[in-house]
């Protein structure tokens, strides 16, 4: 589904990622783990088109997407969530999800300004779809709240609901469990497994090892910008190089 070939990213004199290559299988949940500063978020920013690549290529379903802009990737079905949730803070919860449905609607400036019938019909469909997504994520009760006033945990769920609005084939989640309490994390795990069930490929960067070991089908371990290991959660737990990177050497 998603294939990375020799990704290298250099910021000035700092090599943030060095020759990272791995593939992600369709319909699986893949976790990217590693100590702080390993380059996990940088890797996400590269895949989602926010940073340019210094060397290497990325393929999505065989198509080379290395130089695609985030908006183009969104149209290809690749969306992401952010480590420090990036909501549209001055808009309501419902409107946030409706923006996620932007690419599913077509009305231009002209038909919007004149409220043409086709636009009104589209608008009604968007609203219904957005509401059902909020229900799926268990936040329909706060639909009319301004996003900035949401408690953190619900903000996370909203960000996922918004990403789901694009009907993606692959979702990248940057530390989705960070700052969530146990109940919220359980809800998150449930949502991610639901996504998998409906055929969406999920990639997560996560520090919550319990969650990662529980839901991920395979793991990629990064350390200091290099790839340390890949494998199933069980294999990774046994991997000596990984243990050394996390705990240090005796």
């Amino acid at each position: 589904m998603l294939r990375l070939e020799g990704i290298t990213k250099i910021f000035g004199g700092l090599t943030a990622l060095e020759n990272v290559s791995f593939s992600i299988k369709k319909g699986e949940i893949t976790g990217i783990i590693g100590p702080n500063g390993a380059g996990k978020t940088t890797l996400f920013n590269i895949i989602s088109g926010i940073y340019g690549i210094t060397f290497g290529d990325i393929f999505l379903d065989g198509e080379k997407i290395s130089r695609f802009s985030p908006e183009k990737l969104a149209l290809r079905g690749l969306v992401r969530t952010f480590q420090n949730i990036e909501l549209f803070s001055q808009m309501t919860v419902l409107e946030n999800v409706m923006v996620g449905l932007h690419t599913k609607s077509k009305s231009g400036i002209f038909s919007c300004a004149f409220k043409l019938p086709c636009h009104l019909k589209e608008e009604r469909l968007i609203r219904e779809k957005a509401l059902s997504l909020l229900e799926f994520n268990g936040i329909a009760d706060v639909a009319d709240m301004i996003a900035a006033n949401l408690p953190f945990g619900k903000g996370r769920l909203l960000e996922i609901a918004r990403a789901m609005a694009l009907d993606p084939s692959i979702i990248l989640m940057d530390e989705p469990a960070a700052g969530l309490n146990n109940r919220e994390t359980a809800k998150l795990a449930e949502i991610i497994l639901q996504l998998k069930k409906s055929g969406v490929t999920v990639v997560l960067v996560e520090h919550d090892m319990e969650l990662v070991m529980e839901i991920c089908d395979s793991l990629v371990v990064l350390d200091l910008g290099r790839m340390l290991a890949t494998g199933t959660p069980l294999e990774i737990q046994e991997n000596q190089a990984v243990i050394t990177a996390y705990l240090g050497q005796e």
Partner: protein
Amino acid sequence: MMNVLVFVGINTILAVALNLLLGYAGQISLGHAAFFGLGAYISGVLTVTYGLNSWISMFIAATATGILAFILGFPILKLKGHYLAMATLGFGIIVYIVFNETVALTGGPSGLSGIPNLGIASLTFDSDIKNYYLVWLFALISIFLSLNLADSRIGRALRAIHDSEVAARGMGVNVRLLKVQIFALSALLSAVAGSLYAHTMTFISPASFGFNFSVELVTMVIIGGLGSIYGSFLGAALLTLLPEILRAFQDYDIIVYGLLLILMTMFMPGGLVRGVPGILLSLRPARKQGREY
């Protein structure tokens, strides 16, 4: 008085136009007086020098200004924040200089006079009262269209850009194109206002389209309330009427004017449209409590 209300109408169109860009998309322009001026001058020159029909001139003025803004928008809207402010400021100054220096075309600093009124069949909009209805018809249409636009996927996408550009792009919003489109639309509406101004005043000079007026437009939008179409009307009305009311203070009017603006931004940071209801609401429970004790 009618004369002032005509100005309120024109300024409302301008404030609404700028609000689409500044309040919704969150992109500053310190050069909007230039688009207003381009509308006025293109309309004026086409009718006075080339004898074109006023309505056709207005149409050409609006379209040409919109296209110019669209072309200009691509490079200029790559800039953000202070840099965008600087670039639009520079554009405004260039246009202002062109109005002043191309004497053969625009009449230079002494202005362009004898611009014909607009008219339909035998009706000519040549008095303040007629112009009042004409200008307000246009103002209401721009308010109506802007309200619709704000409450649509385009309006939501604009506000999304305002809140988080990176997330908006991640949602598949073509941020760059949308910014340019709204910039062009805003310029086009401003040019319509300019054209109306030229045909109602029948005389224009560069002084009306300088940097000061660009700043005044931004002030109208902010005082009225960013991201509120009704707020733009309130801001335009207040800033147009206030100098007339403050005449009572004679030489001190400008000091009172400045003080009022400072106080309003301090106590109503969300603008008149949110501030006034807010203050009323905060007074109400206090009164209730007073009654109980």
